[in-house]
């Protein structure tokens, strides 16, 4: 168990050792990618933050302006009272109609006037001018019923005569504040009766809303102090506003409207749902955000506009870390606004940039890793291949040595018995010749001839194997001189024949002098042998000008006018022990041309022959162009092709 774990660890270590560079590249690539991604995402975040802050700030300003403008409506109405001695119902209607509530002040449910009625004695007179009665009834010191309300509809009609001061503490507090300050004041969140939205089954609906009050004083009385204002109070201009409409208008005015949610709370301190005035998307986010630790206030261009900004991380519930808190005063109340970026806010092109950078960086890193890995693996493979080649080479060398030892044994041990056979046959002939008849002597002669022939065979075979063994020495070889020396030796062996040798002068090549001599010995020796029956034997050696392709690759030839051979058997010519003539006709072991071919091949050349029976034979061969002495000769591969072409041409 531990053994296999150990093996696994070693395999991993080995793999890492080999591919370490690749993994290094991968790690550096991934690290750079992460850095770049972090940088880009930081940038994008900062940009988003700026964009968000601007959007939030713009939304806040729009909200502020809108609320102000709504509240300002009440000032216009108060102007009406200032201008006219007593405002009539028709006047009020005309005024409200003129300001085009529906078209320009969406969300203003009703514009009305609350009259201050002092005691029951004034109540009757007041109720005379009213289509209904003051509700609730009963006796009290002061009544604050709504005298006028416009536009007139089913919802607003019910407001006529309604004494909100008596009935609703929120209204009373607001009215008192308005009366004492002389400034417009709004209630907190209250419910405003409005016409039911189209399609609804009910006629009327209660919607969250605000009610703004602006006090109207008797103009001839002083209003300097709270007491004077209380005395001078004539009534209030009242404005019923549904928040839904009010803030929807804000959102619609925003350029990036749907991507930011905002929640307005009618409270300076808390974000409790009880104080929620308006929520853009119906999902309360501020509460979640409040539970999280509050970060540092934003420093930057938008910071001045925004009082308290929190940088909050994205929560698991999907709340965005892009959020901000702000507040603004609205007709005597402080409203808190919580802004938060909706998911679509970050879905822009820029939002995807970090992901793009990360993915492309990762891709490039992987690509680099792959490339490096392949390079490393290739190097490892090349090294392994090289090692294997070296091993193979060593094996080959060992095999070669064995082969040499073998041929040494063959050379030494195989010949010993042959010597005995030959020697003792001779002794028999000499010592006991008298006791043998002619036939017996002839048999012994055959025994001797055979043993001698076998000796030659062994020698030739050894020669053939020696040609392929060992390394090729490359030296400058005087081809012509070697040919002349070989010819001289041949002539000396049979001086009486008077063979004519024509050997071209000045042929030089790079090659193994010993092997080239062996090749020439065989080729010229063959020519010498097969011209034995010619009275005027002629043997030529040189470069064939016709076959030599554009003078680049010399094609050497050895030509004789001897017995020749049938081209039908040309294919057998260079095989070991292949003979085209009877032993009785021409002596030979059939190994000579095989040897020549091997020598030519080892020199990167090729050999072929042409002949006709009794018309002589020609042997052509090339040696590797790279081995040519002339350095200007290009090392083309034309030699083999050119050779083959001319061979075919000749053969055909």
């Amino acid at each position, binding site marked *: 168990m531990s053994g296999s774990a150990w093996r696994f660890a070693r395999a991993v270590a080995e793999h890492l050792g080999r591919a370490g560079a690749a993994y290094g590249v991968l790690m550096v690539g991934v690290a750079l990618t992460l850095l770049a991604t972090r940088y880009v995402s930081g940038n994008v975040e900062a940009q988003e933050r700026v964009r968000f802050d601007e959007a939030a700030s713009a939304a806040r300003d729009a909200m502020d302006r809108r609320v102000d403008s709504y509240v300002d409506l009440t000032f216009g109405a108060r102007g009406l009272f200032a201008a006219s001695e007593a405002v009539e119902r028709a006047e009020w209607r005309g005024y409200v109609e003129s300001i085009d509530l529906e078209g320009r002040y969406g969300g203003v449910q009703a514009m009305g006037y609350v009259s201050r009625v002092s005691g029951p004695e004034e109540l009757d007179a007041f109720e005379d001018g009213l289509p209904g009665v003051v509700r609730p009834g009963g006796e009290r010191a002061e009544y604050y019923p709504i005298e006028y309300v416009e536009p007139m509809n089913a919802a607003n009609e019910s407001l006529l005569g309604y004494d909100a001061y008596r009935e609703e503490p929120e209204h009373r507090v607001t009215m008192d504040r308005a009366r004492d300050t002389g400034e417009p004041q709004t209630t907190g969140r209250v419910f405003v009766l409005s016409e039911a939205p189209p399609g609804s089954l009910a006629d009327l609906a209660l919607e969250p809303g605000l009610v703004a009050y602006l006090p109207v004083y008797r103009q001839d009385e002083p209003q300097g102090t709270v007491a004077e204002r209380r005395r001078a109070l004539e009534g209030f201009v009242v404005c019923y506003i549904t928040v839904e409409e009010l803030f929807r208008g804000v959102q619609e005015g925003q350029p990036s409207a749907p991507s930011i949610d905002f929640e307005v709370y009618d409270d300076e301190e808390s974000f409790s749902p009880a104080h929620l005035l308006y929520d853009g998307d119906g999902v309360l986010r501020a509460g979640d955000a409040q539970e999280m630790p509050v970060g540092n206030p934003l420093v930057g261009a938008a910071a001045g506009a925004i009082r308290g900004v929190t940088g909050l991380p994205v929560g698991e519930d999907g709340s965005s870390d892009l959020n901000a808190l702000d507040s603004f005063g609205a007709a005597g109340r402080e409203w808190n606004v919580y802004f938060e970026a909706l998911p679509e806010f970050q879905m822009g092109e820029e939002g995807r940039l970090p992901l793009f950078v990360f993915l492309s960086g990762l891709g490039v890193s992987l690509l680099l890793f792959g490339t490096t890995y392949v390079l490393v693996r290739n190097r490892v493979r090349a090294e392994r291949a090289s090692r294997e080649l070296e091993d193979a080479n060593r094996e080959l060398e060992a095999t070669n040595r064995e082969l040499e030892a073998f041929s040494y044994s063959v*050379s030494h*041990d195989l010949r010993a*018995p042959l*010597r*005995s056979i*030959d020697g003792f046959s*001779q002794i028999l002939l000499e010592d006991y010749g008298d006791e043998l008849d002619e036939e017996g002597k002839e048999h012994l002669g055959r025994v001797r001839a055979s043993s001698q022939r076998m*000796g030659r065979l062994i020698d030739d075979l050894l020669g053939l194997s020696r040609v392929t063994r060992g390394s090729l020495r490359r030296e400058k070889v005087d081809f012509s001189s070697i040919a002349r020396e070989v010819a001289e030796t041949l002539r000396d062996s049979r001086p009486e024949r008077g063979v004519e040798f024509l050997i071209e002068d000045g042929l030089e090549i790079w090659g193994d002098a010993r092997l080239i001599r062996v090749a020439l010995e065989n080729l010229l020796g063959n020519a010498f042998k097969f011209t034995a029956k010619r009275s005027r034997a002629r043997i030529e050696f040189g470069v064939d000008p016709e076959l030599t392709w554009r003078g680049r690759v010399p094609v050497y030839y050895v030509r004789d006018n001897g017995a020749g051979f049938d081209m039908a058997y040309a294919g057998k010519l260079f095989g070991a022990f292949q003979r085209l003539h009877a032993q009785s006709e021409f002596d030979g072991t059939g190994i000579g041309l095989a040897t020549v071919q091997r020598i030519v091949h080892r020199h990167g050349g090729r050999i072929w022959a042409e002949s006709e029976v009794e018309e002589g034979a020609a042997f052509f061969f090339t040696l590797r162009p790279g081995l040519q002495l002339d350095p200007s000769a290009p090392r083309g591969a034309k030699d083999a092709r050119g050779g083959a072409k001319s061979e075919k041409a000749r053969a055909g």
Partner: protein
Amino acid sequence: MGKTILLVEDNADDEALTRRALKKNNIGNELVVARDGAEALDYLFGAGEYEGRDLAVMPQVILLDLKLPKVDGLEVLRRMRADKRTRLLPVVILTSSKEQQDLVDGYGYGANSYIRKPVDFAQFLEAVRQLGLYWLVLNETPRHQGEG
């Protein structure tokens, strides 16, 4: 004493043929035959079977085969050349091998001549004739001390 010839040869056939060749060529010198390299060294340095041999009598020529049991021919040659008593003795390597390496080694270790045994007995006779003529008749060796 006549001039002895030391033949170092493990093959009995070759020994017989060599004897025959010598006889045919009228070379009547005493022939000492060692069947392996060790025996040859024993003879030369008076050891083993040849313990107490008169070392003043050294062969006129040594015919040395290369492939021998126990101690091979080249080793025999090396030891002879390393010893003062046998340093100058003429050694003719007489072998079947025609390997270039054997020739180079043979001469390198100080052989005086290298002859490859021909298969053709007639050629062998001729070789032995020339060998005897040269090493036993024509060649002069430094006189060995104690001889006479």
